[in-house]
C-alpha cells in the first residue's frame, strides 16, 4: 500500500463553541482496505467522519482526498467525490417511504429534457432487491421509514450507502442495532466492498466485528488519536483495552465470566 491513500487527515481539530470535539486526529484509508475506527463513547468518532463526509467544516488541520487538499462545502460534494456515509443517526426522513429515502438525493430518472421523472418502478425494485441482499424482506417499499424497526431502518441506510458508494464507504456503527443474521450480512458486505477495491471506514464498539473485517485499527480517545495498528500487530485483548480508553476491564469482565 505505497500508493497515495484515498483519504488522509492530519492533525484535524474541530470545536463546537467552547466544546473541543477533536483535538489533533490523523488517519488514512487506502483503496482495498478496511480501517476500523475505534474508541470510547464521546471520543469524537462521529465528529471525525462527519468532517470527512462534508457535514462539518474542520477548525484546523489537513484533509486530503487522493493526495490533494480538499474542502467540501456540503455533503453533496463528498458524495460527488465518491464518499458515501452511513451516519449514526442514519439521515433518514421518517415520513418518507423506504424507496424515497433510499434514493434521496440520487433519484433514478426516466424520460427526457424537462419531462424527466423518477423511475418509481425501478426504484422500488432496486430497493427491495438491495434490502433483500442485506437480509431484510420488506413488506412494501412504499411503507414509511418511521414505521420500520430500528434494525430495519439501519439496514436501509447501509444498503443505500453500499449501493451508491463509489470510492470510500464510511459506516458509523452500522451493526449496532442489527440482529445476528443482518450483522453477518453487513460484515460480509464490507468484505465484498473492500475486495472490489473501495476503501472502508468502519466504526464499531464490538472488537470481534472489528477483527472480523478490519485491516488496520485506529483508536481515538478524548478527541486525540491513540495510534494505528495493523491486524497482525495487535491481539484482540490489547485492542479491547485500547478501545476502552485505557480503563482496566479485566476486573469487570472477570465478574461477568469474561464474555464481553
Amino acid at each position: 500500500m505505497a500508493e497515495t491513500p484515498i483519504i488522509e487527515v492530519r492533525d484535524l481539530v474541530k470545536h463546537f463553541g467552547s466544546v473541543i470535539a477533536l483535538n489533533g486526529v490523523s488517519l488514512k484509508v487506502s483503496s482495498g482496505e478496511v480501517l476500523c475506527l475505534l474508541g470510547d463513547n464521546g471520543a469524537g468518532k462521529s465528529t471525525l467522519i462527519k468532517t470527512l463526509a462534508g457535514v462539518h467544516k474542520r477548525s484546523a488541520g489537513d484533509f486530503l482526498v487522493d493526495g490533494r487538499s480538499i474542502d467540501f462545502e456540503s455533503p453533496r460534494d463528498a458524495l460527488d467525490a465518491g464518499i458515501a456515509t452511513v451516519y449514526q443517526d442514519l439521515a433518514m426522513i421518517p415520513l418518507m417511504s423506504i424507496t424515497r429515502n433510499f434514493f434521496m438525493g440520487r433519484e433514478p430518472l426516466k424520460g427526457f429534457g424537462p419531462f424527466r421523472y423518477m423511475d418509481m418502478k425501478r426504484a422500488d425494485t432496486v430497493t427491495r432487491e438491495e434490502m433483500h441482499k442485506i437480509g431484510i424482506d420488506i413488506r412494501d417499499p412504499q411503507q414509511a421509514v418511521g414505521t420500520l424497526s430500528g434494525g430495519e431502518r439501519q439496514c436501509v441506510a447501509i444498503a443505500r450507502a453500499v449501493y451508491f458508494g463509489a470510492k470510500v464507504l464510511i459506516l458509523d456503527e452500522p451493526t449496532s442495532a442489527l440482529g445476528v443474521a443482518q450483522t453477518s450480512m453487513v460484515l460480509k458486505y464490507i468484505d465484498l466492498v473492500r475486495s472490489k477495491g473501495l476503501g472502508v471506514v468502519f466504526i464499531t464498539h464490538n472488537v470481534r466485528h472489528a477483527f472480523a473485517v478490519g485491516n488496520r485499527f485506529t483508536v481515538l480517545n478524548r478527541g486525540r488519536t491513540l495510534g494505528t495498528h495493523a491486524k497482525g500487530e495487535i491481539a484482540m485483548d490489547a485492542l479491547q483495552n485500547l478501545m476502552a480508553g485505557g480503563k482496566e476491564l479485566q476486573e469487570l469482565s472477570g465478574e461477568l465470566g469474561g464474555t464481553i
Partner: protein
Amino acid sequence: MSTIYDVKDKLGRDERVKTSSLLTTLIRKPELGAVAGLVLVIVFFLVFASPTMFTLAGIMNIMAPASQLGILAIGAALLMIGGEFDLSLGSMIAFAGLVFAAALVVWHMPLAAAILIAFLVALVVGTVNAQIVIRTGLPSFIVTLAFLFILRGLTLVGLKWASGGATQLRGIKDVVEGSTLAGFFSGNALEGLFAWMAAHDMIDKFPNGLPKVSGVPVEAVWFVLFALFATWLLLRTKFGNWIFASGGDARAARNSGVPVNRVKTTLFVVTAACATLVAIITVLDAGSTDARRGFQKEFEAIIAAVIGGCLLTGGYGSAIGAFFGSLIFGMVLIGLTYTTIDQDWYLVFLGTMLLVAVVFNNVVRKRVTGER
C-alpha cells in the same frame, strides 16, 4: 439464497400483513379524507342552501374564488411540504398587481412585457425571502412576516405615486382591450362550447339567447392544470422527492446530498409566482388594483393547505389535498350566502364548518390508512 428468507405463503402473501379488500386498498389514500370533507360540505349545502347554488351558474360562481385561492394554496402547500411558510403571499398579490398595472398604464408597456416584469418581480421577491431565511437561519415565519409588512407598505407608496395620490389604479381594461394574450388570464375559457350548448338548449339562457354561463372562469383552468402539475412534480419527479426530504428533515436531507437551499429557494419563487399569477388574473378581471388586494390571502392559503392534509411541520402533504382543501374552503366561504342563515352568524358557521370538515377529513383518513 432467496429461499432462506422465503416464508411467504404460496400465494406470495406475507403472513405479517393482514389481507385487505380491493376496495380498502383502492381508497387507502390520505387524500380521500379531503374528498370526504368536500362531500360532507356539499351534502350540507344541498340540504340547507338555495338550489341555485348547484346550478351551472352557481358552481362557476364558486369556482372563481376557489380557483384563485387554490392556486395560492397549492403554492403554499408545496412550500409547506418543503418546510417553510410564506406569509408575504397576500402582500405579494398586491405588490405584483401594482407592478403589473403600473407597467401597463403608467409605463404603457405591452401586455406581454408587463406580465414578464411581474414575474421577474416574483423571482426577485422569492429569492430575497429564501436567501434571508437560509443565510440567517431564522424561521421563515418571521422573515416573510416582515415582508408581509414591507410589500404591503411598498404597494401603498407605489400606488400613490402611480396614481398621483389615490389608492387605486384603474384603466387596465382599456389598455389590454382586444389582446389575445389577455384571454389566458381573464374572462372565461371554453366560451365557444358554452355558446354551442346554449344554442342547443343544453344550458340555461338569458332571454336574449346568450348563455347564462358563458364559460369556465379562466382561473379554474389554471387551477386544475397547476394541481395536476404539482401532483406530478411531488410524486413523480426528483425535485418532488427533494421537497419532501427538505421539509421532513433538512439536516438529514442535506447529509444525503439533497441541495436543500436550492430546493427552498425554488419553492419561495414558485409561491411568489403563484401570487403573481393570481394578481394578474384579478387585475385583468377587475380592471383595477388597489392597496388592499390579497389581504390575508396568506392565511386562507395555509388554511386550505392544512385542510387538505399538509403538516405545518413540513415533510408531509399533497397538492391534490390542497386542491380539495381550497374547494372546501371556497365553498364554505361563498356557500353560506346561499343559505338562509342570519349573516351575523356567518363567522360562527364558517368556523364550525371548517372544524367539522377537518375533523371528518381526519377521521376518514385515519380509518383508511390505518393510522392510530
